[in-house]
């Protein structure tokens, strides 16, 4: 009995150590980013790397807000990420419901096609998509970027939601239909309330992916008025000189929105992810 308890304690100790290591692994870059954003240039370029800023300064943040259109970048990223999230939820939900519940020819092919579409790397797609956007006159617009981001967010969201919808007992929906609900009514009144964790995961995924996306934003957007945070960061590199202070300040601030969203929806997201493990 004592031996079992000792083994359990040892395993717990190993587990905790591993968790602590992973925590350090995850948090150190974040800490380094914040510390660098609070240092003066002289300290950033100093011979010794300092863990704690010697003379903390907010000058990099001041420069960010006073001399660059960073707020505009933040606004653009927000518009695009929120727009993509809402559209992904709407299209993903409708698509997933159709694939999970309706019977029509080609259903399986479409379902598999979703996975394949998601797997095509953006590096292959950005030139054809750029041509499409040019034709539609959507280059350099928020709408164009939202439409582009749907190309990777909708397939994933549909696929994920499909698994959840299948797990909702059919009888519940049939009962709603017998009571006079339409298909859309049963989706909104029965299935969606039961799939809130999945919707939280999908929303979080769509938001984070579109917030962090770089390649499409870089190619499809030219003007400052539509530029997102990720592409704005590259303007802190001029030729072979890196302006680390403002770049780190901008990186820190741009990491906050996904973090806040995650903290708000944390409970649902964790639940949604674990449910997905057995229902997907």
């Amino acid at each position, binding site marked *: 009995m004592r031996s079992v308890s000792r083994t359990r304690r040892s395993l717990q100790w190993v587990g905790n150590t591993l968790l602590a290591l992973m925590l350090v692994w995850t948090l150190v870059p974040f800490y380094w980013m914040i510390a660098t954003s609070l240092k003066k240039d002289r300290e950033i*370029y100093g*011979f010794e790397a300092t863990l704690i800023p010697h003379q903390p300064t907010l000058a990099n943040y001041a420069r960010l807000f006073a001399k660059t259109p960073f707020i505009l970048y933040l606004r653009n990223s927000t518009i695009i990420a929120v727009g993509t999230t809402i559209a992904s939820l709407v299209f993903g939900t409708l698509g997933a419901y159709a694939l999970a519940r309706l019977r029509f020819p080609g259903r399986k092919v479409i379902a598999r096609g979703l996975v394949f579409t998601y797997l095509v790397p953006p590096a292959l797609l950005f030139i054809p998509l750029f041509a*499409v956007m040019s*034709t539609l006159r959507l280059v350099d617009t928020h709408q164009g970027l939202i439409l582009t981001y749907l190309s990777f967010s909708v397939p994933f969201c549909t696929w994920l939601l499909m698994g959840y919808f299948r797990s909702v007992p059919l009888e519940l929906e049939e009962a709603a239909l017998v009571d006079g609900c339409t298909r859309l009514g049963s989706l909104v009144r029965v299935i969606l309330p039961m799939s809130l964790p999945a919707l939280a995961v999908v929303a979080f995924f769509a938001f984070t992916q579109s917030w962090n996306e770089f390649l499409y934003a*870089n*190619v499809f957007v030219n003007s400052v008025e539509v530029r997102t945070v990720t592409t704005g960061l590259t303007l802190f590199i*001029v*030729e072979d000189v890196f302006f680390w202070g403002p770049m780190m300040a901008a990186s820190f601030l741009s990491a906050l929105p996904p973090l806040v969203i995650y903290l708000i929806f944390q409970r649902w997201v964790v639940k949604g992810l674990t449910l997905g493990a057995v229902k997907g």
Partner: protein
Amino acid sequence: MRMTRRHVLKQAGLAAAVTTTSPWWLVRTSHAQRAKKLVFWHVPNFTPLADDLQKQQVYEFAKQAGLKDSDVEYDVVANEQAQAKLAAAIEAGNPPDVMRLYESNVQFYAAGGHLLDVHDLVEKMRKEPKGIFESAMTSVVYKGRAMGVPLAVNPWPVHARLDLLDQAKVEYPKTWDEFVETSKKIQSPPRLFAFGMCLGLVEDTTDNVMNLLWCYGGKMVEADNKTVVMSSPENVAGVKVIEAMFKTHKIIPPGAISWDNSGNNKAYQSRQAAFVMNPSSIYAYLDGNDKDLQKATGLFPVPAGPRGTVNQIDTWAYGAFKKTPYPDLAKGLLDYFMQPANYDKIIQSTGGRWVPVYKRLFDSPFWREKPAFKHFIKMAETGVPVSYAGSPTPAAGEVLNTHLVPKMIQRVLVENWEPARALDECHKRIVEIYARYAKG
């Protein structure tokens, strides 16, 4: 409806036809549907003033040409992403009308048939009093025609810490032998190494290494742009000097072998290197960020080897793209930029980062009165591109981008190969590249 085999084949054929032709159609249509009459991609400078002036000039020109502000698209494209973005835009048939291009890019895009012929504009520039630095022409002339408008002739001086030289009571070294001796006197490793030579697998390493090899009589290719001479005894001698600096005299920081292009900048800006070979981007950075270090910085020609002093220059140019529906406007904008009065404003606002292509602009107090710029005119006059003795052809561009010279020097410094063997390997690879381009 029952699906027959014929029906399926018909549908599949239609789908294949649409799939294969739609990219072509989309590209064609996207090009035809462009809303703006003048599209300029601006790559940012060190100084916001230069950026503001450039933007102002674009809109001034547009106004003169009878365009409304809404007819102009002025886009800021980050330097790091500019080439990828341009490649995508060209592929999609939607490049800007005018953009700044770096060194071998003019040759590359000219060879691809993407650039407008701007020979007439360059000829006009050459007819200005005192003319332009002819060293700039190597980069912009393709098959006898100027395909880019030379914008700046940027020397690669040695940035040197004058305060350290003063402390050690020594002068800036005139030869590489003196350079080694001076370096030993002024350095105090590990906090301060004398020579921040770029040795990582990056473009700056090719620049730094080749510049030293030229002083020993070496070169990559002959002026015919065909005969590769990388394994010459002169190059072997030069590589041995670098090897001795790194291994025997230890005046180069060991970490330099893993530097990126900004490694030498960072080493100098953090006061961890006393000498670096770099364009004056470091000097321009110090102007806005560390005046004390700027005051203690001198810009000098590269020390001489047995064959004297050879300095590198890189030429930036404006390119106008053939796809533009308004070629006259594109060329008109270039002409406006390069009118000496407009041009001089931009050049001076860059604080020395851009060195003027017009010789007579060097008569201004801006260039005459600052000791740091004392040697620039000679460097601009006699400087050579990294592909010396050849031109910055697409083949030379590939040699640069595939880091063959950095790999060669790392064979010697890291893997302890004999210089002759490493150069032989490098020579063979360069021969392959030049032969491939010669075939077309």
